[in-house]
């Protein structure tokens, strides 16, 4: 229960930071997607169905706050929460490196999928969309993950004191 509350609170904080802070963190046109970063990391750490629901609504809020097609971010975030959760279950060995590798792959997938959607709806070239937006944004997301990952790990670990020894459900920093 406490984890679920924290999950929602974390999502709200991520959305607020995305609206307030992210527009001021633009580097060469690339902006981090803090909500995506949070969704990916939360899905990796918790691996629950509630993360899918949180991801969907977080994406929906970002769709509504922004100007892009409503439903795109909601669908992408939900998909990525599912994939990250499964990838963490299969490949995660609770190290920072593995967590970052999974996150990186998932962020890149989201940005590439969004670029694909963008290319279909706007007259831009694939190279322009991927090279000038998707890849730089995915890298930026990965950099943000280095900050968000320890905070989120600590947050969920603190919320679950009755859990068993942290052999598989927390990330060990090396």
């Amino acid at each position, binding site marked *: 229960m406490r984890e679920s509350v924290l999950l929602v609170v974390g999502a709200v904080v991520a959305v*607020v930071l*995305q*609206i*307030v*802070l*992210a*527009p*001021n963190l*633009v580097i060469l*046109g*690339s*902006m981090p*997607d803090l909500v995506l970063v949070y969704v990916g990391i939360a899905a990796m750490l918790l691996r629950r*169905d509630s993360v*899918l*629901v949180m991801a*969907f609504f977080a*994406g*929906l*809020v*970002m*769709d*509504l*706050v*922004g*100007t*892009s*097609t*409503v*439903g*795109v971010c*909601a*669908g992408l975030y*939900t*998909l990525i929460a*599912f994939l990250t*959760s*499964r990838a963490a279950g299969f490949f995660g060995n609770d190290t920072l490196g593995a967590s970052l590798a999974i996150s990186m792959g998932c962020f890149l997938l989201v940005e590439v999928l*969004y670029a694909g959607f*963008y290319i279909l709806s*706007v*007259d*831009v070239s694939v190279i*322009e*969309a991927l090279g*000038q*937006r998707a890849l730089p*944004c995915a890298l930026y997301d990965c950099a943000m993950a280095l900050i968000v990952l320890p905070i989120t790990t600590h947050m969920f670990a603190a919320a679950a004191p009755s859990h068993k020894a942290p052999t598989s459900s927390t990330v060990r920093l090396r």
Partner: protein
Amino acid sequence: MARKQQMLNDSSKTIGGAALLVVLLIVSAVLSSVYSNEESSGPVHSVQAGVGMVAAPLQFVGVGVAYAEDAAGDAIQNATASDSSYTQLRDENAQLKAQLAELQEYRGEAQRLQGLLDLSDKYDFSGVTGRVIGKGTDAWNRVVTLNVGSASGVECGLPVVGGSGLVGQVIEVSPLTCRVRLISDPQSGVSVVLQSNRAEGVVRGSIAGLLYLEDLDTSTEVNVGDTVITSGLGGSYFRGVALGTVVNVINAAGTSDRTIVVEPFSSADPLEELTVVLRMGSEGDLSGTSDASSSDGGSSEGGA
């Protein structure tokens, strides 16, 4: 036995997660479909505009953060000055600093508003001026939020100008706010003419933020420095509003293809106050006798 039970649990959890995923993806697809097929006054668009209005105060905080960043940059610059000169200047300027900053702010604002008024006189348009209270929340859309909305007469599709020229177009309106897609957005396209030879083309934005002049006849001569103004074709923008100048013409070797880069006049202005053009009186610079970038007002008559 316990392991088998664990595997069963994991299997049922995966199936449950997959079912939930499918349901949520279907809901997302339905939302996207409804959004894409409805008009801008449709229910999903209306909800989006309403949420945008609710989020406007948060975006305004974000603009404040940007100002704070600038102030921090100034402070760092001051801190890196040599100690002796800094101490001397600090004593001298201590009393005047706050007042000066305030006056500079007022002066800057007055200049920007004067620029908008000059533009209004030049093109004889009536409009409503608003302050930029938010920027886009994703990297793919170049959009700003203004603190004027349908209560002030703003409607979707109206052009928006800054102190020096065209800035963008209103794409979403709520009672108190509106969103403006900048002309540098890849989804923007403005029908234009070259002021020097009346050749028609379309200026499109790009992901990198540059403006490209396209759909121009291959035989048309284009030179660096040519002024580009709106043609009014298509009805999206009023005719004769200054947009920018050609800054680069890159000819592809062996073909007639060329890439024409346009720098908007508005790039020199800070995006702080913008005017939504509600009605256009005359047709600006289409007479071709004035330089749209000149600050003397040029000829505001001419055209139809």
